């Protein structure tokens, strides 16, 4: 569908946005490769939508430049940029039919024979029989597809999606995530997707940029971000992390730390900061990497694994897994997710247990940050 071989990457250089004394986006350099599915992830107010709007031309950057390929578009108004947006809550024109909504961009560019293209586009989003309806007569999911069709029909170099699935219910959202991913693969256009939903970002995007307080905290492939978070914000915002404050006993290729008398190990390669003997380190592990056994079976645990003892404070049955909250002197609330393969009847609240995991699955973070960063904000914007 795309015939733009000379499209090129989206390049933001030193771009920032101030509103009076408030800085929505700090100076930011970002290159979004052509044809990729790129997600800007963060809680509300982190600057992700502002960044998107500066690419669209709806917001003038206070400093910096925007390039599409070799062309600078910083001073181009939105109607002169080869970029289209799928707006939050869709912004479909209420006074126009679905057909005319989709034809809007073509007509503005002076294209006379729009019928064929619009019909094809309606077929692509499976809304052929709704062409003459008005937007308010469609369901949320249908409106969402019209919004995508209305933008895609213009063959933009970049498609910007501003929380496009935010208004849909969970089931429909999952369905549309796959649908959007399919469309992106089919048309090969660069998609830049803004969302506060970490699962959505990881499901759909090739590359995710996690934003916080007007800055990009970390950027990378979803698995890379999840396995190797470099800040507590990323560790907590993407999924859940158990973060333990520890002091470094010995630094080397294998770092040995201790927390409240418990000794833990982790590879130096997985530390985002260089550990120094006698210094502090935040040690992290994901809840699903941890195994749980009753205290009586401690001896059966293979040597070389990290071990923590504690007591089950609470458990909740989720279906595929059971989630435990463990009270331990090392850390007051450790989370553990256990797959429901064979459920152990002894793992009930109050039971003494041992947690153990492969030291390779442990990551280390700089201790000079807020250990709870990224936790509250997730709930707020959910």
């Amino acid at each position, binding site marked *: 569908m795309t015939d733009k071989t000379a499209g090129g990457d989206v390049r933001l250089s030193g771009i920032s946005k101030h509103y009076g004394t408030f800085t929505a986006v700090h100076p930011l350099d970002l290159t979004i490769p052509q044809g990729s599915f790129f997600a800007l992830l963060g809680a509300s107010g982190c600057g992700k939508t502002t960044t998107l709007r500066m690419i669209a031309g709806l917001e003038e950057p206070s400093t910096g430049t925007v390039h599409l390929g070799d062309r600078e578009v910083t001073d181009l108004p939105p109607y002169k940029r080869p970029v289209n947006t799928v707006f939050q809550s869709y912004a479909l024109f209420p006074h126009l039919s679905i057909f005319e909504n989709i034809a809007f961009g073509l007509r*503005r560019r002076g294209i006379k024979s729009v019928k064929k293209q619009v019909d094809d586009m309606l077929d692509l989003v499976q809304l052929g029989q709704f062409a003459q309806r008005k937007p308010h007569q469609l369901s949320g999911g249908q409106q969402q597809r019209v919004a995508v069709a209305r933008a895609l029909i213009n063959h933009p170099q970049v498609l910007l999606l501003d929380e496009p699935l935010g208004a849909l219910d969970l089931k429909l959202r999952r369905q549309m995530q796959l649908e959007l991913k399919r469309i992106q693969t089919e048309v090969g256009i660069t998609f830049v997707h803004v969302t506060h939903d970490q699962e959505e970002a990881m499901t759909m995007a090739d590359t995710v940029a996690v934003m916080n307080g007007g800055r990009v905290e970390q950027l990378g492939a979803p698995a890379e971000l999840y396995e190797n978070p470099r800040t507590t914000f990323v560790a907590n915002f993407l999924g859940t992390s158990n973060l333990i404050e520890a002091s470094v006993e010995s630094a080397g290729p294998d770092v040995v730390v201790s927390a409240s008398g418990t000794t833990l190990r982790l590879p130096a390669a997985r530390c985002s900061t260089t550990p120094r003997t006698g210094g502090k380190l935040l040690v992290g592990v994901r809840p699903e990497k941890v195994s749980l056994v009753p205290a009586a079976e401690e001896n059966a645990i293979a040597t070389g694994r990290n071990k923590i003892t504690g007591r089950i404070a609470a458990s909740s049955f989720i279906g595929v897994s059971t989630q435990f909250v463990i009270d331990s002197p090392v850390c007051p609330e450790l989370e553990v997710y256990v797959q429901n393969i064979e459920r152990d009847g002894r793992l009930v609240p109050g039971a003494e247990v041992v947690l153990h995991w492969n030291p390779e699955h442990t990551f280390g973070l700089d201790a000079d940050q807020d250990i709870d960063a990224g936790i509250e904000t997730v709930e707020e914007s959910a």
Partner: protein
Amino acid sequence: MRTPLTWLRRNLVVIAGLTTLAYMILPNVVVTVFSFNNPSGRFNYAWQEFSLDAWKDPCGVADMCGSLGLSLQIALWSTLAATALGTAIAFALVRYRFRARGAVNSLIFLPMAMPEIVMAASLLALFLNMGIQLGFWTILIAHIMFCLSFVVAAVKARVLSMDPRLEEAARDLYAGPVQTFLRVTLPIAAPGIAAGALLSFALSFDDFIITNFNSGNTVTFPMFVWGSAQRGTPVQINVIGTAMFVIAVLVVLAGQTVGNRRKKAQPK
């Protein structure tokens, strides 16, 4: 148990409401009935006998239809002008941040918060002091002035409820500023603008107090009715009043029927 008393208590609101409605409609009924009267004297206040004379010759009274035409003309022009000026102000107030917003808001609000006679008298003071000849133009100036605020209020309410993202979407879809305004902003604001225009027309057409002060020897339809209340009320006044009422009700009902049909034709 359904005693008459409980029935009365349950339907108290309905009874009271319909009584008020009757009170509001009664004069129109009287106007209609007396348009078929053949009064004995100069005044059409007491029933004499049934007659179709006035309906057969609605313009049979000297100067009445002329004044009606003048009123329509003034209402039309003042509606056009007030709607254009008021819509511009409403857009500026809703869509832009600027100094003196508060002052502008007060200036818009004041004409609505002032007894009409105060504005009427002060306009007359202006015209007298400046030696301006009272007539068609002074009436038009006055009508545009007091209609303006009502248009601003109506349009502002509509534009406020409009999603600014719609205009962004238009700009994003290759519509320049002019195209965006014509294709998106204006159609969506249209109901508010229409409401403001309709209100302007009704206010201007029916205005008496301000017109009475600033018309000189020019006679609009309300001025004609006022004069005839002193000299003698021709039955034709009732004919015009009845016709206006019937036309208004029919237009509104027809509009609603069309709207309902359209809704039914496109089921969800």
